[in-house]
């Protein structure tokens, strides 16, 4: 099953189980179905439970909150995470703290989905991640599935949670296929070791797990085994799983899908440095976007984004290895699959 289908299935199962769940947002029920991720919902559950809206992201976020404190379980969808910037007031000043301000009198069960854009020259306004920014606000949970099983299971956990949960979905992940067992439950707030290895730990966020798997495949051919921890949740953050890994490997690369400066990679690195003080063989390295807005042209875009190659080169440097010859390797395969216009 693809990641997009897993998202749709996760929502569908919760909608079947609980009539108070509904899905809404701009263009949610149109024929494109948010890149397919809301497929079949309007047919199965009707237009009162899956509907499109005017362009008013700020109000929609407040509307989700109002519905949530009235006992419903809204799922609000944004086709680009960048549009969340219009909703920060409701998220930061209301959703994240209304329960606290009321002394625990209200409950805020809602889900906000947002897609991280990449592909076809999305440029500066359609490519942000922002997960770290939201992780910063007490009262929010923030998850980033990178595999179909997690897309399905974390979606279900998010809808069932009695608190606000944000889910960030990288656009390229939508075409990733994998086995989805409908019975598998995944708790929010837990990392997952998606590859075992003794040489070096990669803490991967979202799409960077795919890049890390590719890097691991390349390095494994010369006997260097990366361990990959899919962070999956940045709030709450599962420090323990990561620490256990780094305590064994003594090396860590944090591969975030965001700008490095003042981003979530610093939080991860700080915690590792703190807990593994004296046990690290090399300082924790961080990978992320270059510190510029995202350019439009492919040439510069490829320099802007971190990739498997960066992971490989960084690992080699940390481990004191010579540079692997990458001449025959196929990288960026998803980008090649991706075609315009959007």
């Amino acid at each position, binding site marked *: 099953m693809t990641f997009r289908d897993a998202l749709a299935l996760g929502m569908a199962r919760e909608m079947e189980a609980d009539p108070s769940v509904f899905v809404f947002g701009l263009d949610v029920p149109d024929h494109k179905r948010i890149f397919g991720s809301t497929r079949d919902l309007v047919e199965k559950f009707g237009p009162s439970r899956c509907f499109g809206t005017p362009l008013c992201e700020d109000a*929609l976020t407040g509307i989700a909150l*109002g519905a949530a404190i009235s006992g419903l379980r809204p799922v609000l969808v944004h086709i680009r995470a960048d549009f969340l910037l219009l909703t920060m007031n409701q998220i930061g000043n*209301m959703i994240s703290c209304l329960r606290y301000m009321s*002394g625990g009198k209200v409950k805020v069960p809602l889900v906000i989905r947002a897609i991280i854009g990449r592909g076809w020259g999305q440029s500066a306004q359609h490519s942000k991640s922002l997960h770290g920014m939201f992780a910063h606000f007490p009262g929010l949970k923030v998850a980033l599935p990178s595999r179909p099983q997690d897309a399905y299971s974390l979606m279900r956990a998010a809808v069932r949670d009695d608190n606000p949960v944000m889910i960030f979905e990288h656009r390229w992940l939508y075409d990733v296929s994998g086995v989805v067992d409908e019975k598998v439950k995944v708790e929010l707030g837990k990392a997952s070791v998606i590859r075992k290895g003794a040489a070096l730990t990669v803490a991967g966020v979202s799409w960077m797990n795919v890049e890390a798997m590719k890097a691991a495949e390349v390095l494994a051919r010369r006997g260097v085994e990366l361990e990959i921890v899919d962070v999956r949740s940045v709030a709450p953050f599962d420090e323990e799983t990561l620490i256990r890994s780094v305590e064994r490997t003594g090396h860590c690369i944090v591969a975030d899908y965001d700008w490095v400066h003042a981003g979530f990679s610093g939080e991860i690195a700080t915690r590792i440095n703190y807990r593994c003080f004296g046990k690290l063989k090399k300082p924790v390295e961080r990978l992320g976007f270059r510190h510029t807005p995202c350019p439009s042209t492919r040439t510069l875009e490829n320099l802007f984004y971190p990739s498997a190659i960066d992971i490989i080169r960084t690992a080699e440097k940390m481990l004191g290895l010579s540079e692997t010859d990458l001449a025959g390797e196929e990288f960026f395969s998803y980008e090649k699959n991706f075609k315009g216009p959007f």
Partner: protein
Amino acid sequence: MNSRDEALRLYRKLLLARLSEEKIRELYPSNEIKSPVHLGIGGEAIPVGVCHCLPENSKYFGTYRNHTLYLTLTGDTDGFFAELYGRASGAGGGKAGSMHLMAPDRGLMATSAVVATTIPVAVGAAMAARYRGSDDWVAVFFGDGAMEEGVFWESLNFACLHKLRILFVCEDNGLAIHSHDTTRRGFRSIPESVGGFRCHVLSGDGSRLSTVVEKTREAVTRMKKDSQPAFLHLTYFRFLEHVGPKEDFAAGYRPAPTEAERGGRDPVAIFEGELKSLKCSRPEMDAIRSELAKQVDASSRKAQAAPSPSPPDLLTDVFS
């Protein structure tokens, strides 16, 4: 007003709010109420009148200037004063302060110190009512300044589009802190500004409780007949400074009212006049006043003596 009885019930609500806020004015200089207070003196008739006309299970949303709304819906002077004093027994366990008084069990779903933020939340509650096929009503109170925020228009558009059962109640004191409406409005008038939207628009003098009741009833009738939201524009005079217990006419941004003007904009004085014409005597009113004054006094004393939250309370109520 239909009856003397009804009028007296309303009078009690009006007066409870007034006396509670006068008590705050008295106590505030001690610096023990460590919360900003946005007093509603002059505007009490609006929440009292609107809430009076909506059915039992209605849901309400307000602002930081929420004291009357809270007291009208709950009557709970104990929780009110305890919250102002930041006590564990306060309405928000000391986490809310004056600006976030809420009582979901009495229909007061949310209040907020960021202007206009509860407007879309109220629309969400109205949508939830529709979703569940319930016939709950929703009313959201906001100041005239809130209409300048984009989210007001987004919310109005959404509610009108979906014909939700919601009353938008604009409490228009012509001021946003110290800024006059003339320095803030690019539209001809508040009712005209929303005139192009598919909602019922009504205006009136919000200092007169009977007008508020009349206009709200008219809105309800019209909403029942032609199911669209209603926009209620009610004017009033803010007697005190924007935040805090004092008058601030000396600051010079607006003239002090004459005694006659005061009387003409004081909802309690005006309503007492109406009560007289309903044959309520001064002694009868005084009896109510002294009964409520005792309640307010007792609650404020209790609050002062009540314990603060304990350290572990800091960490609770973040998540459900």
